């Protein structure tokens, strides 16, 4: 049986705490990391250099996991989506690169609102660019969100928190995570035998008695 509710909770409840001071400004570390990622992304896209382009988005995942801010999450998703487009089309609209450069410069000058506008505009332009591509682009963005979500989960953030951060469903995220190696390198303190023994107790199964 579980322990009962602690006195500490009762005290806190009576004290009525408050949470959720929403940040209006960007964290300095997030800003610097995004600039580094954007620089790399811009150079790779200008050179149409696909090597390691897919990994650039992962470089911002530390930040996205710790700060869980909309900026690093959206850059991770946009970077991955651009990589997928270049991979498929072998080309990139120069306008996208111009937007990235503008966004980078705004961020450099601490113009966060304008940076956000540029990234939002870029996302819209990518999505609207080609009607034929539209469905594929939607798929790419969805895939990017799930893929970046699995990375954040891999960094130790819970499933529900990760899903909330990327505004995706746990159904999608679980299905994707299951196909990765995220779980396979996690040390376990409780071994399988102990777990099964406890579960058998719950269901009054003293021993393995009946196979199929």
């Amino acid at each position, binding site marked *: 049986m579980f322990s009962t509710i602690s006195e500490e909770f009762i005290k806190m409840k009576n004290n009525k705490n408050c949470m959720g001071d929403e940040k209006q400004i960007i964290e300095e570390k997030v800003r610097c990391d995004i600039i580094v990622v954007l620089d790399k992304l811009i150079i790779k896209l200008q050179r149409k250099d696909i090597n390691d382009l897919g990994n650039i988005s992962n470089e911002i995942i530390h930040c996205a996991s710790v700060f869980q801010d909309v900026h690093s999450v959206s850059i991770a998703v946009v970077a991955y989506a651009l990589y997928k487009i270049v991979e498929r089309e072998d080309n990139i609209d120069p306008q996208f690169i111009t937007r990235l450069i503008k966004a980078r410069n705004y961020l450099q000058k601490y113009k966060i609102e304008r940076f956000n506008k540029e990234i939002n505009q870029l996302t819209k332009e990518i999505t609207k660019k080609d009607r034929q591509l539209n469905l594929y682009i939607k798929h790419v963005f969805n895939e990017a969100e799930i893929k970046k979500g699995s990375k954040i989960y891999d960094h130790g953030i819970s499933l529900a928190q990760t899903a909330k951060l990327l505004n995706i*469903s746990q159904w999608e995220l679980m299905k994707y995570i299951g196909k990765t190696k995220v779980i396979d390198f996690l040390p376990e303190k409780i071994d399988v035998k102990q777990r099964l023994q406890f579960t058998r107790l719950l269901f009054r199964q003293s021993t393995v008695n009946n196979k199929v």
Partner: protein
Amino acid sequence: MKALVFDSGPIISLTINNLLWILDPLKKKFNGEFIITPSVYGEVITQPLSTKKYKLEALQVLPYFNNNTLDIYFNKSIQDYAQYLLDLINSCFKAFGNNIQLVHFAEMEVISCAKFVKAEAIVIDERTTRKLIEDPEGHVRYLERKLGTKITIDMEKFQQMKEELKNLRVIRSIELAVISFELGLYKEFTDAKFKQVDLNKAILEGVLWGIKLNGCSVREDEINEIINLELK
């Protein structure tokens, strides 16, 4: 109350694997309640019903509420305590001077509910909440390795978190699947005439791998060990 409190993960995992039906016989055998919280209901029913994706899956879960296999448990104290746990845990660990928001309200509601109803265990497939209950120090080491930075721990809050989470027992959908196997619930999959493969092994492997591949936090070597233990 004799109860198991379910997070959304195991419901999702069992649904995707077409194994939700094991809940009925398991509940009978358990002789207690299978409970979910309002947030979990939102994730497995309300949210997917409002989108195209996973609508059908949500419709498969819905009858399990209608026939009371799964019950929603709710009160204000559970929500207040869940919020307290959320604030406590999400202010325990810092990286780059920032509190890491490790967990979500929905997961804390599962723990809170389990403590209020004095449940036997929580059923959860996701890794972070389970690790915070079973091995919080290990999870800190994992965070440090993954984030590549030192994690600063508020020791007072950390001790308080351990105090709040102590004695909680956790099982995963994988354990429910194994118990179902031991109870002979997969008998309908057998075909006496089919001799090409060892069906006993195939069924166990199929079920366990299906659950793992749909997101349950179980390692490959754990699955292999379970198969060896069950079939020896």
